[in-house]
């Protein structure tokens, strides 16, 4: 151990070899004692110079100082403070290993490390969570879950207990760009929304940008959700894992070549074939298995270069009775088989003086499949689609001045969407169908500067120029003025079908009202060139993806933000009030009777809609203390409006109507109680206005079948969604220096057994069944709730190092 530390010290010596006259350089490297990962944002105060600063992302703080005897005070939230003295008479490097201070560690503290950032930077609408914060948010089945945890944050909602993603500020699920180590993830959940796909033990942090999204990001209009995998800074073997009811996990972190090459590899596997049929009779014929793995390699050839490679894989297989079968294919069952395979190669070159260059190569493959085993045959018919995304990115960052930072970069994305092919297998019962590939390039140049104007004003100003081009081979339908199809045009390979150029300005301003309060305004414009098309509550893994073409125009969004922030550093309280207005164009709504499955000309099935979303988010956070946590309230609306000429395509008569993601009131809270270092108790509450849904405007009978008639959309609302979760973490290792640590996490999801309906639908009456409820109505009605009682689970987690 000591030897290793020594080696580490030596290696960091080489970073600071600059000598300026009589001044000496003091370099401090701060790492987490448990895993030696660098800690950034650590406050370092020096006496007698009364100066100091914070560490950078590599955990390093460096300063030129006169020869003297200094005392260093090193503080970092959640860690035990360190005080040391140092006689500076040569260039010095000190390695500080900080120990977690359990009782002070806030469990769901937002922005814990950078606790005053909210009043310092012009960035608005940002949410940051780190792994320690995520891990104790109670989740169903005892495992923390990124997407479920996010729904505890202001402005984040979902479709209910079954949701294949999250909705941010009234946007649809596909309007959020989910990045796992920079690579986009197209299907973020296992088991139809029950779990997020991200390997839990590998997650280091989650960032969400919702307002003035930084110019370095683009491509989706509602938010950017960046999830970072842990970087394997480690000098020793470390194992951790957990055993849960539905899934089990194991992660290993180990150096391969000490201080040069390190690896972290983790996986999770879930078998629920046995679980579902037992608990839910309706799910009798369910098969559901999934797994995900994340491997990250870190290579440090020298102190100026760092290479990381991340591989993320996720696979699901399921068969579920609650999913309607695909029409017109005769089979004994419908099975879903889908997988994600992502690769990220990142190179970071650090120049002198806080400037660096990052190069990234990304490939994301998403390949969903439907399998249809034929009746009385071994043959399996399959439907396959695929998204093959690749990207190259180069970014230069200049951070050398305190009051001015600058970055600029170029990003080229290629989207290859294979919309679907139907493969008859070896049988002869169906005709093969092969929809042609869609090939699109999105090229962006971006640049951003942050600077201060005097003491009170700081500004962030950026621009992102995007050029999107769709290339052949491509078949395009032509229409007359009445939108009647006339003919089709074929584009050859590499012919330009259509191209869009869009500048996207981003702007943020922070005006400091006082020491601990500030006022911000922001604006951002974004365009989106790829979308997920579905006409259900939440998309299936096999739902169609489509890139923009001549008829399906890029989605456009202008977000305006206004916010007020106030911190009370003495009591660790942060208050914020943010309001936003989002004006969107070309949102997708489906036309009556739309069927996207292997459909060639999707523009015939969808109507573009303008959108208006606005809201106010009030947030109260207490970051430290025995009781800590966050309480949010949001008032938000999300409206859509079509502009169709043909009467049958007009939705709600072309008037504004509430979108599926309209939630006027949302209250969510996460409260932690940390009494001693062995027990911590957390409570989460989610309460939100019910999801809009559609009720019938009439009924007519056809041959004994009662048919509900719908004339408008989203004319009613499901009952209010609310749920309370409880989590109790018991750490029983009394000796913190033990190599093996185990803890139990006991969670009760839906503590008071609320039945939150996911869907309410009409049924044919079956004689007198439930007649006391349905009374004289020609149709019956049922509500489907995913959970009706508290879901209790106990998970055992262990860590060995």
């Amino acid at each position: 151990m000591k030897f290793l530390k020594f080696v580490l010290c030596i290696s960091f010596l080489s970073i600071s070899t600059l000598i300026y006259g009589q001044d000496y350089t003091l370099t401090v490297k701060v790492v987490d004692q448990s895993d030696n990962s660098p800690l950034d944002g650590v406050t370092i105060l020096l006496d007698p110079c009364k100066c100091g600063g914070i560490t950078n992302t590599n955990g390093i703080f460096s300063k030129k100082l006169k020869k003297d005897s200094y005392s260093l005070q090193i503080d970092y939230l959640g860690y035990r403070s360190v005080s040391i003295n140092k006689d500076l008479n040569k260039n010095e490097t000190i390695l500080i290993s900080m120990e977690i201070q359990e009782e002070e560690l806030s469990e769901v503290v937002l922005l814990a490390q950078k606790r005053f950032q909210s009043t310092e930077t012009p960035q608005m609408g940002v949410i940051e969570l780190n792994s320690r914060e995520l891990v104790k948010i109670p989740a169903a089945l005892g495992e923390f879950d990124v997407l479920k945890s996010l729904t505890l944050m202001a402005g984040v909602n979902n479709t209910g207990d079954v949701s294949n993603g999250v909705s941010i500020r009234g946007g649809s699920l596909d309007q959020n760009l989910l990045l796992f180590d920079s690579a986009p993830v197209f299907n973020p959940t296992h088991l139809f929304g029950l779990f997020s796909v991200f390997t839990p033990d590998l997650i280091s942090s989650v960032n969400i940008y919702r307002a003035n999204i930084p110019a370095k990001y683009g491509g989706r209009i509602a938010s950017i959700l960046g999830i970072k995998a842990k970087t394997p800074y480690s000098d020793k073997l470390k194992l951790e894992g957990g055993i849960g009811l539905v899934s089990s996990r194991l992660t290993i972190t180990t150096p391969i070549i000490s201080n040069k090459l390190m690896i972290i590899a983790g996986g999770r596997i879930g078998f629920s074939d046995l679980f579902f049929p037992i608990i839910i009779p309706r799910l009798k014929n369910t098969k559901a298995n999934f797994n995900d793995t994340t491997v990250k390699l870190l290579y440090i050839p020298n102190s100026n270069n760092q290479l990381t490679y991340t591989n993320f894989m996720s696979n699901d297989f399921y068969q579920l009775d609650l999913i309607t079968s695909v029409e017109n294919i005769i089979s004994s069952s419908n099975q879903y088989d889908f997988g994600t395979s992502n690769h990220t190669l990142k190179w970071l070159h650090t120049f002198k003086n806080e400037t660096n260059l990052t190069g990234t190569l990304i490939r994301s493959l998403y390949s969903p499949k439907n399998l249809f085993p034929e009746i009385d045959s071994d043959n399996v018919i399959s439907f396959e689609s695929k998204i093959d995304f690749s990207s190259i990115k180069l970014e230069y960052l200049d951070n050398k001045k305190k009051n001015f930072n600058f970055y600029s970069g170029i990003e080229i994305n290629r989207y290859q969407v294979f919309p679907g092919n139907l493969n008859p297998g070896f049988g002869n019962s169906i005709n093969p169908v092969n929809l042609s590939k869609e090939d699109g390039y999105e090229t962006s140049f971006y640049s951003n500067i942050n600077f201060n104007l005097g003491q009170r004003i700081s500004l962030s100003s950026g621009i992102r120029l995007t050029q999107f081009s769709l290339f052949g081979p491509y078949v395009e339908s032509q229409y007359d003025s009445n939108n009647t199809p006339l003919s089709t045009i074929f584009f050859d390979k590499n012919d330009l079908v259509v191209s869009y150029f869009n500048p996207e300005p981003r702007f943020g301003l922070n005006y400091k009202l006082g020491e601990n309060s500030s006022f911000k305004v922001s604006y951002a414009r974004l365009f989106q060139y790829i979308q997920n098309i579905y006409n259900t509550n939440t998309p299936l893994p096999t739902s169609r993806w489509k890139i923009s073409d001549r008829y399906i125009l890029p989605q456009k969004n202008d977000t305006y933000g206004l916010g007020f922030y106030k911190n009370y550093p003495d009591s660790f309280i942060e208050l914020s009030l943010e309001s936003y207005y989002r004006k969107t164009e070309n949102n997708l709504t489906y036309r009556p009777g739309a069927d996207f499955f292997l459909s060639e000309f999707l523009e015939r099935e969808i109507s573009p809609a303008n959108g208006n979303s606005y809201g106010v988010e009030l947030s109260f956070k207490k970051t430290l203390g025995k009781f800590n946590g966050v309480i949010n309230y949001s008032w938000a609306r999300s409206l859509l409006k079509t502009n169709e000429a043909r009467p049958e395509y007009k939705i709600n008569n072309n008037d504004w109507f509430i979108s599926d993601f309209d939630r006027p009131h949302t209250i969510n809270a996460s409260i932690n109680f940390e009494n001693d270092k062995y027990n911590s108790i957390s409570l989460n509450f989610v309460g939100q206005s019910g999801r809009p849904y559609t009720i019938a405007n009439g009924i007519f009978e056809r041959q004994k079948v009662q048919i509900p008639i719908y004339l408008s959309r989203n004319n009613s609302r499901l009952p209010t969604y609310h749920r309370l979760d409880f989590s109790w973490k018991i750490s029983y290792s009394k000796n913190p220096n033990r190599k093996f640590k185990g803890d139990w996490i006991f969670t009760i999801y839906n503590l008071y057994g609320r039945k939150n309906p996911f869907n309410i639908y009409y049924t044919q009456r079956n004689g007198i069944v439930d007649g006391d409820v349905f009374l004289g109505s020609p149709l019956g009605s049922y509500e489907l709730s995913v959970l009706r009682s508290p879901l209790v689970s106990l998970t055992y987690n262990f860590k060995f190092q």
Partner: protein
Amino acid sequence: MNFTLHSKKIISNRFVCLFISIITYSCIDPIEPIFDFQSDIVIINGLASTTPGSTSVKVEKTKIEFGDYVSEFISGCRVRLINSLTKEEVNFLEEDQLYRVSNVFKINPGSKWELEVILPNGNLYRSTTEVTPFEVPILGINEKFNLEMKYDEGIGGYLPGNEISIDFKDPPEDENFFLYQYKAYEKETYCKVCEYGVLRNGECLSQFDNPRLTKDYYTYTCDSRCWKISYNDEIIVYSDKFTNGKKISNLIVGKIPYTSKQNILVEIQKLNISEDSYKYYKTIKDLVDNNASLNSPLPTALIGNFTNISNPDETVLGRFTAASAVTKSIFIKRDNRTERVYGNFLELQPEVLGDPIPNPLTYEYSCEESLFRTKNLDLKFLDYFEISSLANDDIDGDEIENNSDNCISTSNSDQSDLDFDGIGDACDNDADGDGYILYYENFCGTSDFDPQSVPNDNDIDSVPDCIDEDDDNDGYIDEYEIFSDSDPFDQNSLPLDSDNDYLPDIVEREITRTNPNNPDTDGDGYIDGRECCPLNPSRN
């Protein structure tokens, strides 16, 4: 190396894990259906088919009636079918809440038609032109019993049934779209059931206040051969989008719920329809059957093909479809199935001689022709049921033909009829014709085979004193008359009853604890002596 081994050992030793999970159910609960109901929407449903006799049009409008949502038939419309090419017109006649043409009318594949409806208020609705597709015959038909055919929310489980599948050869030259329907025939078990009552003069006569009757229903068999008709309650459509020109096999086109052990004959009708029509029925399917899943398509408007010519913005529901139809039948034997039948199956419970019910005892009811019942099953189908086309002339086997038998249901070769009322004694609940039914005579110890042997009946109301609660028919029951010292056998001897509520004052004071000076103590509108609960305003 040592290091790794060590760690493994620790893990295996300490790897004690435990799961606790309280079983949790996803649930499906009934809730009161809610609607955002709009009245007076016109619904026109029309079908013109290549099968004679199946062309008909229904015109309705939505309406709320006594708080219930209904569609009301619109009478007095002028309905005509117009051949788009020849301009030939076919006029419809109103019959039985339906507009029909002659039973021989049929359309030919390839012909083009549109439908025009003029409402009594003068509004003119016209459909778009429909092209009649060509017929595609069914090659094979099969059935398979499935214990878990269909999930039923009401019982919260799967219901069994027979799945009917067909094979056919899809014509490669056209895109084809199909709608499948069935009509199933099984022997009708009862032609009538009377709950808390008996069938007299063709109607159920309530026996609700007959305290001696312990049977809560009576079943009546059919007086002739009678077939129950059932239809699909699911929409089944198929498009050859992926199978154009292929031989299609095992396509499930009908689901017959296993609700009785009667053998059943299922006639599958395969309608070849237009693409627009397919989309229409597919939308109905989404609205009706595909709406209960996690991935249910969100409900949308059902767009038909009618427009109001003078007001194109009016919402008109329904559709005119020109279809070519082929049928194929399959007979399903269910009488030897051992699986339990789901459903509220009523045990046979005919009227029995000696039951405390009025004469004449009734056993049968006629088989009334309707959408759900018929006497006239096609002769070719009768063979399936192994029934000769000849009727059974002697049901009870007493060698006396039904139409001259004085008791058809019970074997009585002697045809004895003591009171000469035309009802044989074996069927006569008052065989001696003295006005007292068998049950009363037995109860009071007299004989129903001797008109001289009659029970005491003070008020001569045909309910003998030994059963009658008010022997003098003065409105005061015997028990109260005795309690208040009046004569229960004398109509002129009445107890003191100040408020005339048929409860004597002393009874009101000491037994019922009601107000002797207020005829309706609880004020619910029912006088105290004529309700169950004179102190409870919410019950009477």
